[in-house]
């Protein structure tokens, strides 16, 4: 089965997010880029499905020209084809993003991908909606929050956790599924995979940017992030002081 996976290029943030002076974006001059963690798992899931049943994995992203790097990262993990919906670097909202993705899938042959996978939500904007909007545009059922997926013939069975319970869904293909990290443990890229990815040709299309009805005004870090921890001591010698503090906080009485 041919599977399409949508991924998004996001800054690789470590211990601290630095904003640009105008408060409009994350300052990425000192950071690398990656795809959102859920999406890396979506690609792994697609690769595993095609390893079992045959077919190909196409990864698609909407982003600046440099987002081709993230497509190549995913090709190195075993995906076969990359499609870049190239932008001029402006941020796209979820409505326009979903419309551009759905149009591109139509161009690629809407019936050629029985299964479309997305990450459940992007690490940066966290809109929780692009996959669902794509599904509606293509007239497909969509499941989200998925931690386990089985493809059996023309059916997809999918499970997620909800409020301490497992919820099971069964939908007919073609379908869209938003998956979460934990569905699998993504592999590391192999050397042959990296070499193949480096040479792979990436299909580029240029959708037209459209303003979204939800417009970012500014970003800021949360207040109160400049505190310093009170150091109780060093090594095992700090244990009595640690126990005193835990006791003062009322945390040594078992609930």
């Amino acid at each position, binding site marked *: 089965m041919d599977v399409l996976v949508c991924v998004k290029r996001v800054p690789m943030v470590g211990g601290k997010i630095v*904003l640009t002076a105008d408060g409009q974006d994350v300052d990425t001059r000192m950071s690398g880029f990656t795809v959102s963690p859920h999406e890396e798992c979506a690609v792994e899931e697609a690769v595993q499905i095609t390893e079992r049943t045959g077919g190909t994995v196409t990864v698609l992203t909407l982003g600046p020209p440099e987002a081709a790097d993230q497509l190549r990262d995913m090709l190195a993990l075993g995906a076969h084809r990359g499609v870049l919906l190239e932008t001029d670097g402006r941020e796209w909202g979820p409505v326009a993003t979903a419309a551009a993705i759905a149009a591109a899938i139509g161009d690629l042959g809407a019936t050629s991908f029985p299964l479309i996978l997305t990450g459940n939500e992007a*690490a940066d904007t966290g809109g929780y909606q692009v996959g669902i*909007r794509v599904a509606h545009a293509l007239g497909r059922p969509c499941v989200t929050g998925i931690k386990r997926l089985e493809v059996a013939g023309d059916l997809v069975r999918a499970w997620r956790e909800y409020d301490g319970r497992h919820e099971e869904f069964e939908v007919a293909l073609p379908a869209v599924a938003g998956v979460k990290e934990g569905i699998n443990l993504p592999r590391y890229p192999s050397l042959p995979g990296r070499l193949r990815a480096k040479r792979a040709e990436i299909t580029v299309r240029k959708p037209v940017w459209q303003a979204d009805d939800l417009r970012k005004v500014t970003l800021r870090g949360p207040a109160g992030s400049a505190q310093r921890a009170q150091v109780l001591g060093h*090594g*095992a010698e700090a244990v009595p002081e640690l126990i005193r503090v835990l006791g003062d906080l009322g945390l040594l009485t078992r609930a």
Partner: protein
Amino acid sequence: MSSTVLCLVEHDADGIADGSLRALAVARSLAAQSLAERSLAGSPELIAVVFGSPGGLADSVAGDLAGHGVTEVYLVSADELTGYAPVAWARALEQLAAASAAAAVVAAATDRGSEVMAHLGALTGLPVAANCLAASATGDASWRVRRHRWGGSLLEEAELTAPCALLTVAADAGPADAGPVDAGPVEPTRTKSPAAAGLPVRAFTPALESADLLVRATESEQSGGGTSLATARVVIGGGRGVGGPDGFAVLEELASLLGGVVGVSRVVTSQGWRPHRQQVGQTGTKISPELYLACGISGAIQHMAGCQSAKHIVAVNTDSDAPIMSRAEYAVIGDLNEVIPALVAALRAAGRQE
């Protein structure tokens, strides 16, 4: 356009779900503002939408809603709606919003709330502002929202233009959300008012097509037992500094002594040292314990997004400059593999003396 606001209310065995209490607080404030914004007379209309059959759990929840500013309750049921069905739920909200010419529809940013609102956005062609902390009306069809980005590590101020505002409300909004808030800080309460008895509860049966019922939860069973990470009072965190899969035994022992559970950072699950269900973070579980004892955890953004609601964070780390040091309240500088066994031994010794 009226000033009516709809709020999807989820419930569990304890009554109204905590996330929905937060959503109700935002919805209530929006209803009051949109009335003022349109210079309309009367009182704010806040309609709670609850899914479930009359006489069931949902029905008893309906009685709890008056204390939250709710003026009317719709209890949604249909023969075909035997389990959770995201598109059908969105259809019901769409029809109720159209019938009341709602100014806004609000839900908690839970898996269900986020999913249903995204479907509602797709069905109506309207934008959805996800993970909001606060929202205010700035005009007849314009709104100002404050929402989470990066799992709550950043706050975004945004403008929303829509005839009907579709919002989800961050369910895990923690202490990090303090700061100037246009629409007032949102604090859920579980108080009930004596007016509850008089709240009108109306039954609503949505018009559904077969396409609306393609996705339905067909089975729902309890997942694994034990103290849930999400609700644990004490969480002992283990990160890269634990060193390998064998290093977690002493953390489990400490967790057991303190009546808590072990949680881990993303690097630990990515290495396969521990299962993903123990991950605390933006892509794992969001925790809100009394104590989070973070051992060998540097404090990456991804991780802190999952524990920013912890009441007290204590870090044990060899690096006194690690990012966790600016997020923790207390710290022990040192190797967790020395500190934690010593802590366990001291707690055991103290336990024997009692």
